[in-house]
């Protein structure tokens, strides 16, 4: 029985049915490998009942994207550091913190994270320049308006 029989879908030709079944297994493994708290985190961060504080909806990799925009590739080291700082931005709306305080907190978090990383990496010279740029960074740009659109393509 096909996994999508409930969709009243087109049948898969028998010559490729084995590959289709293997792909279903691969997809199932990807779904099963998702973090245990995936749904809870996403539901909390995207809930339509929460205040629309954009920066509060940004996870660690979006912070890394900001770094990428400044010329640094996303790296495991910086990702781990940012992951330890970003949660404060995610919990702030539920605690009733103002948007201004949230932005201030986010700016401090990313600045400290980059400073930490730059002191421990061999690429510190490059990061020092990035850290200088970050001093004047408005955390709002981290929100990246594209997340509120259906994409650009």
């Amino acid at each position, binding site marked *: 029985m096909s*996994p*999508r029989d*409930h969709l009243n*879908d*087109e049948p898969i*030709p028998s*010559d490729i049915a*084995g*590959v*289709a*079944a*293997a*792909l*279903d*297994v*691969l*997809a*199932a*493994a*990807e*779904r*099963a*490998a*998702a*973090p245990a708290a995936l*749904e*809870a*985190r*996403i*539901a909390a*961060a*995207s809930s*339509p*009942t929460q205040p*629309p504080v954009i920066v509060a*909806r940004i*996870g*660690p*990799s979006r912070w890394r*994207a900001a770094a*990428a*925009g400044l*010329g*640094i*590739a*996303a*790296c495991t*080291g910086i990702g781990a550091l940012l992951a330890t700082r970003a949660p404060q931005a995610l919990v702030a709306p539920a605690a009733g913190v103002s948007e201004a305080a949230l932005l201030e907190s986010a700016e401090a978090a990313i600045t400290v994270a980059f400073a930490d990383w730059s002191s421990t*990496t*061999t*690429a510190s010279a*490059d*990061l020092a320049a990035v850290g200088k740029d970050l001093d004047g960074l408005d955390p709002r740009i981290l929100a990246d308006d*594209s*997340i*509120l659109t*259906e*994409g*650009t*393509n």
Partner: protein
Amino acid sequence: MRAMTADTTPAPPSDVPVLLARAAAPGPDAETAWRELVSRYARRIFALARSRRLGEEAAEEVTQSVFVTVSHHLRAGSIGGYEERGRFESWLFRIAVNRVRDEIRRRARAVATAEPAALDACSAAPATARPADNDEDHLRALRAALTRLPDADREVVELRHHGGLSFKQIAETLGEPLGTVLARHHRALRKLKEMMAPAPGRKTV
């Protein structure tokens, strides 16, 4: 390749219009309905993103941003046209496909502009957790073969298997005729079958 069994097939969502209405309405039930919607689709979108070699964090970020977009439309009252189940799923996965494309482009730009020293400090995306039995190698090989497909064919395959969409929904998601989607899927799977063709002495798919 030996026979393998899928263990987590997406459940058929029959009450999506009701859930959308509940999530959009003011009141304590909205949060419950929203969580149910996220639970139904988050892992399917996450798997779609992971299939494009995005790391776990990036895949979660893409998934989150998709739901932020849906939430934004719900709050703005502009989701009415998608309340029919099939159309909602097509719309949802169109957002997901676009967000994945955006993320891949963003990463390509970042790699192109990164200093060599910074690149040296980077590691590859973490490996996806795999079944602990001997199917692991086969899944890894299949995943690698997927990356060698043309993008257009690969998207059809990923929407079909990782996203769990019907061919009709894939056609709506990509804005392509149903016949084109079916042809791409068939062509892609034949290519995968060829790429996965075993060395002498091994079983075939």
